[in-house]
């Protein structure tokens, strides 16, 4: 016999959860007592509920296992919303348990009462309000099933305080399966459609594979690499898909989209067949006018979510299904196919692509004297970590530089908020990643704007002794906002600068018990980065002063086709 609170923790353990992220408060005190009384499920105390969700999110992205969050009612629940929305936009499996006021006070505007089911509704895959303690095991089972199957996403479980009352106990049995009659995500693709797609793919003259976050989250990276290498076709990854195909391989043409490489965007624009897999034709890829998007291409679209297909760009051959079984079947059919790939056409296509590559759109022009370009910091980071670190990022210019200059060869190494674009994501996400992989190198690439949105997590890092390396690209401004103001608002920097009021990040890090290092000169960049990464047992806050006037290029021209880009402050296509 167990109380509701004990049942909840026991059910989490039975679900295979060994770590949750949370923050206590009135409505979840019974649950926290249940946590205290056992040693199977560990709990990490964050310093703000938003950070709990990002930490769980980072944990989920790095491991593939669902992240679990526990927050109290009212402000605890509403603080978690940004993190839930972040996970929802990037299809991250997450279960968020929120406390609620007692059943008899719901609707009476009780202290710390919020309609969490209502507030979270647009940003969850599903949610449950637990009506009675006996339902807890089945609700937990169903929540994890929904969060992790189909297109993954966050699920909220709202639990009124009296349901977890230690004074009332019930028999406990964890169900083996989650029976949900109205929920059946696809388990494989339609064979006829796959056959049709493979035929078009093999007859292509100017093909490209455009793969997204779905390939990373669906553990399809290995199969995608096999398929691409079997075909010999160029591959581009979305921001969310980086690492799904090894970036250092010659078939990789770089990231596509708003800040994609010249060769990736030109190849897309010129392609006759696009195999889109686990990607959703996001507006950061297609640019604003989809009628100009890749006009000559036949589009083969593989996605687990039927609603993602033909949402913005019409798919000629839609395939609904999980990436792994679809890619397996594609590979089989490619191997069995009698169609000969037109090697001559493919060679001509590669020649064209290599010509675009020669433009070297990511070339870094060093600044004068000792001024550090932000791109050079990422290049140094790549070198110092041998390209094998987990990189979390915040949102802004630094995020794009990290995506462009850290060449991810493995999936689940690049952890960023792509869909919602949540500043403040990077540090708490790094907390989740480092806890999942205590011995791995985890670096958070951030800026002085983003880092201040969840800077309080430096305390969590101290309490958990996490040796995260924070790489702060400090340009004393909200760089991406400033870049847009430079390009579209006549250089009027409305509320995007604050150089006179920045904290001393080194002293700040030290006051939280960490090591702070400031890098101001290009000549000392690599050496000091090495020094920082040599400190294995401490968090190091590396505050790097970078060129405040740098812009991210290439940059898509608003309303244009994929072939229309600014390549620098003075050049455009």
């Amino acid at each position, binding site marked *: 016999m167990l109380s509701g609170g004990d049942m909840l923790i026991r059910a989490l353990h039975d679900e295979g959860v060994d770590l949750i992220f949370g923050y206590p408060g009135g409505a979840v005190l019974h649950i926290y007592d249940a946590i205290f009384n056992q040693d199977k499920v560990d709990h990490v105390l964050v310093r703000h509920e938003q950070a709990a969700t990002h930490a769980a999110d980072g944990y989920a992205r790095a491991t593939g296992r669902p992240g679990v969050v526990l927050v109290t009612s009212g402000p605890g629940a509403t603080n978690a919303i940004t993190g839930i929305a972040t996970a929802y936009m990037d299809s991250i499996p997450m279960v968020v348990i929120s406390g609620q006021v007692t059943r008899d006070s719901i609707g009476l505007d009780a202290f710390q009462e919020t309609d969490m089911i209502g507030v979270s*509704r*647009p940003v969850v895959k*599903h949610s449950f309000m637990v009506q009675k303690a006996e339902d807890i095991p089945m609700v937990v089972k169903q929540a994890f099933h*929904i969060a992790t199957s189909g297109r993954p996403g966050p699920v909220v479980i709202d639990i009124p305080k009296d349901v977890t009352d230690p004074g009332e106990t019930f028999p406990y049995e964890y169900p083996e399966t989650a029976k949900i009659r*109205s*929920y059946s995500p696809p388990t494989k693709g339609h064979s006829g459609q796959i056959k049709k797609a493979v035929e078009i793919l093999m007859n292509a003259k100017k093909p490209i594979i455009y793969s997204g976050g779905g390939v990373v989250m669906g553990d399809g990276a290995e199969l995608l690499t096999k398929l691409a290498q079997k075909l010999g076709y160029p591959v581009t990854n979305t921001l969310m898909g980086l690492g799904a195909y090894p970036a250092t391989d010659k078939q990789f043409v770089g990231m596509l989209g708003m800040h994609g490489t010249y060769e990736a965007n030109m190849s897309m624009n010129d392609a006759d067949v696009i195999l889109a897999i686990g990607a959703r034709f996001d507006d950061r890829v297609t640019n604003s006018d989809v009628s100009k998007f890749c006009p000559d291409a036949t589009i083969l679209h593989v996605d687990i979510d*039927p*609603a993602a297909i*033909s*949402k913005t760009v019409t798919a000629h051959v839609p395939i609904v299904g999980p990436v792994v079984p679809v890619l397996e079947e594609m590979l089989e059919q490619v191997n069995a196919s009698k169609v000969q790939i037109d090697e001559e056409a493919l060679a001509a296509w590669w020649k064209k692509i290599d010509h675009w590559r020669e433009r070297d759109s990511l070339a870094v022009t060093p600044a004068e004297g000792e001024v550090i370009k932000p791109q050079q910091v990422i290049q140094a980071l790549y070198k110092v970590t041998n390209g094998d670190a987990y990189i979390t990022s915040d949102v802004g210019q630094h995020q794009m530089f990290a995506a462009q200059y850290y060449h991810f060869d493995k999936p689940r190494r690049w952890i960023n908020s792509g869909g919602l674009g949540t500043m403040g994501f990077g540090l708490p996400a790094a907390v989740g990643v480092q806890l999942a992989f205590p011995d791995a190198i985890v670096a958070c690439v951030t800026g002085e704007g983003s880092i201040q949105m969840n800077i309080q997590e430096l305390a969590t890092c101290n309490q958990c002794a996490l040796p995260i390396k924070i790489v702060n690209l400090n340009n004393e401004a909200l760089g991406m906002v400033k870049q847009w103001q430079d390009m579209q608002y006549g250089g009027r920097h409305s509320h995007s600068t604050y150089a006179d009021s920045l904290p001393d990040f080194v002293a700040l890090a030290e006051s939280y018990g960490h090591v702070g290092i400031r890098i101001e000169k290009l000549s000392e960049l690599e050496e000091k980065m090495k020094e920082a990464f040599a400190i294995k047992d401490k968090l190091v806050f590396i505050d790097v002063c970078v060129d405040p006037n740098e812009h991210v290029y290439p940059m898509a021209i608003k309303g244009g086709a994929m072939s229309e880009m600014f390549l620098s402050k003075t050049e455009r296509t």
Partner: protein
Amino acid sequence: MRRIVSILLENQPGALSRVVGLFSQRNYNINSLTVAPTDDPTLSRLTITTIGDDRKIEQIIKHLNKIVDVAKLVDLTEGSHIERELLLIKVKATGAQRAEVKRVADIFRGDVVDVTPTMYTIQLTGTSEKLDGFIQALDGTTILEVARSGASGVARGEKILSL
């Protein structure tokens, strides 16, 4: 184009708000909405009428299908179907108008379900178009109150929406 989507929905607290929320969240229109439990009390049947081109309707249906509480749905307008709506209308009925209102109601096969010396309450069922026609035909009179149920429907023939 006007579409009628019928949905079997888990009869759970909050399920209806997920459906309605989807429409506002994704900027879709709801023209009318009816909902009531079916013979199986664990299931509700919803009928939504909405307006959109094929692309929009396809998206609406895909997104509705993604809602965990949605067990099954059908776009009735894809095939031949029967739709009915109930109208209760209070009309001023004095002097010469009293007979005229009754006559129009008779033509539309409406029933007078409540009477006072100055008004009639008329009940009418039919397609939404027929109800629109009736209200138009009462143009010359003073309409005091209109209560419409919204359309409800089933497919013709042996096609059945059930689990």
